[in-house]
């Protein structure tokens, strides 16, 4: 126990929470945007995998240590947006079931990336044989010299800062701009939105594309910030954890962020506990167990609240 507390009480642990939260947060924001428009993006996991692979592939292709990783990020974002649009096409235009379409995308993501990886590198497990580049860490002047705070908040990957900046951007977008209001209206009452001339399908396409872009940034971060290679199924369920985070945060940007940080904390905890003498399998299970507990607590709370409301 003492060992555990010494791990958690460390500034480096706090820093690792931010690092681990980043991909979850990005994907969760993606889930939240879709949900605000009344859409379900079940395909986050698949989108993240494709973006992760695309990012590594493009950055490696450029061979440039200076801008290669940026090109990779851009490509990852692009493919994320494109897959979001594809999901939109399946669900909105072809009217397939959103859950099934998402599951299909995840399955293709899982196996398709392995196939492409094999075609590219000859390995079906990891891309490390081809050199790719990582997105830079940012040292923040002044802040970096402050003890503890500097360790936590300075020297994070550029995408981590971007993720939290996107939270603010999303708040601004959803609650301050006409387009944001329309997206929310479409999610809350599509008939009402339609009756004032808002194109519901177009708004939902936009939401799916935004959702894909956000998940795409998260995916690119996995392979170009978190680590510096692509490995099969490297997202290991983060797309689903993101869905849970969005649901727990009632799909608001702030709520989703808080929920994502909670999941990030549990994952960071699991990572840190690996240095302790606790069975590996048990430690690995921590974040998932926490997900179940958190969702149960949340659901219990919701049920009680709605019961109260009915009384």
């Amino acid at each position, binding site marked *: 126990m003492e060992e555990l507390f010494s791990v958690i009480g460390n500034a480096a642990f706090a820093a690792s929470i931010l690092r681990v939260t980043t991909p979850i947060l990005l994907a969760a924001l993606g889930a939240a945007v879709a949900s605000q428009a009344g859409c379900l993006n079940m395909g986050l996991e698949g989108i993240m995998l494709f973006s992760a692979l695309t990012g590594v592939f493009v950055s490696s292709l450029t061979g440039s240590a200076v801008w290669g990783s940026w090109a990779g990020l851009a490509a990852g974002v692009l493919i994320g947006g494109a897959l979001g649009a594809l999901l939109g096409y399946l669900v909105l235009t072809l009217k397939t079931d959103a859950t099934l379409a998402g599951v299909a995308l995840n399955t293709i993501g899982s196996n398709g990336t392995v196939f492409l990886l094999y075609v590219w590198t000859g390995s079906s497990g990891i891309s490390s044989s081809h050199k790719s580049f990582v997105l830079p860490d940012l040292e923040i002047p002044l802040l970096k010299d402050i003890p503890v705070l500097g360790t936590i908040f300075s020297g994070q990957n550029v995408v981590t800062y971007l993720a939290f900046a996107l939270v603010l951007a999303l708040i601004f977008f959803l609650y301050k701009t006409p387009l944001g209001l*329309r997206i929310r209206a479409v999610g*809350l009452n599509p*008939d009402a939105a339609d*009756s*004032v001339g808002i194109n519901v399908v177009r708004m939902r396409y936009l939401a799916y594309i935004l959702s894909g872009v956000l998940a795409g940034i998260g995916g690119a971060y996995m392979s170009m910030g978190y680590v510096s290679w692509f490995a099969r199924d490297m997202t290991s369920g983060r797309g689903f954890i993101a869905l849970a985070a969005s649901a727990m945060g009632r799909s608001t940007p702030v709520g989703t962020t808080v929920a994502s940080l909670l999941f990030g904390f549990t994952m960071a905890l699991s990572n840190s506990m690996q240095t302790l003498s606790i069975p590996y399998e048990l430690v690995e299970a921590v974040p998932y167990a926490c997900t179940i507990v958190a969702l149960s607590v949340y659901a219990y709370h919701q049920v009680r609240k709605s019961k109260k*409301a*009915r009384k």
Partner: protein
Amino acid sequence: MSEILRVERVTKVYGNGILANDKVELSVKKGEIHAICGENGAGKSTLMKMLFGLEQPDEGEIYVKGQACKITSPSVAIGLGIGMVHQHFMLVDELTVAENVVLGYEPKKGLVIDWDKAADMTREVGRKYNLEVEPGLLVGDISVGLKQRVEIVKALLRGAEILILDEPTAVLTPQETRELFAELKHLRDAGHTILFISHKLGEVKELCDRITIMRAGHTVGTYEVADLSEADISRMMVGRDVVLKIDKAKAAPGEVELSVRDLEYTGDLGKKALRGVSLDVRKGEILGVAGVEGNGQRELVEIITGLREGATGTVTLEGFPLLGASIRESRRRGMAHIPSDRMVYGVAKNQSISFNILAGKTQDERYTGKVLFKSRAIERDMEALAREYTVKCESAQQTVGMLSGGNIQKVVVAREMSSNPTLLVADQPTRGIDVGAAEFIRRRIVAMRDEGTAVLLVTADLNEALELSDSIVVMRDGEIVAYYPDTGDLSEEELGFYMLGVKRQTKEEVSGVVHG
């Protein structure tokens, strides 16, 4: 006055082959309130949907201000100055009044929405047309009357010169209806044109300048309202004389069937919905419960039928306590229920007519063997019931959701009445349905009474309350404020006094409704 809207020989055939509009003609003058009347399924809604761009005509032309127009979407309609207030409000409950009003039409300050301006715009339209609403309120928190006002403001802000109102008074209290009429007359005097769709002939007479009558997809004609009597209008709507009075013999009440004593219930928002309600319904009697909607009738019905829990007091059906009993048990003991909301509680709209009538009889060994349904018996009997209750359909296998409101209600009535109940709780049994179907349902209720069924009739329709009930109670604010053992000597005006709280009877007079 010049013509602002003209519809020429417009025909619309739906995908399922139903001819909804057949060479419809309509001419509306600027600055008039123009009524569109017709039975359910006469094609009014289809015509309005085409005017607002929700459906496209297959043939014919629509002219707005003399220009031929293709109204391909609501935004095109809005651009042409046509606004619509739908029967089911098109509002987002989670947003504020101002947000709803400017949705899709937001004033901007740089990139962001200018909320101050939005609130000002809402207030300005409100002041100009006597339609004031507080912009900052959440739409989910305001009354139905105010919601409707928000809808009108919304349309006006988008430059609507022609306002279509689809049965706007269906959801309003009498006071709110009066306010709405004053608002609409004010709008007309300010130069707006209003298309008023309604079933209520009294309202048409009171409010409208001209009337276009539709029947079975055709337009019968357009008339000055002042030239027609209500009887004239109803004759043209249904193509025959509707008997506005129900012929029925005097009731011969028997023993008490349903007995309610000291029923108390506190509603969702902590408001006392029922305050010590006591009443008896006897066999062979229709007891009407009149009152402005929202005075406890709904709670009373839901508690008696077992849809709502948490009441104190007693409710007994032939001595059997109903409070806490399962719905299956009370049905087994002879209760039937025609619910007020047919789409929510009345039918499974994606299922067949046959299935909907069968529901509740699935335990019956005429229809269910040891394991499987006896489909031949079901098909035969359900088909026969659909015919007996004059449900207009090709076969009982048709989906209920495809039928018109009146026919859906007949399906509900067929199911409930065919279970041979000893108590029928009929909650707004004819609301929002065409005159023919309403008349049919009223006749069946009288026929059941004659066979000895006790009927508790809850209705917000004064005419129906007076026409159909043998005796009547008036509910106001969760209490029974009046009891008339015989409706024969009761006038509509007198009933209104009790409903609106101008008068109330003494405790002794009211206690007359307790017989046992």
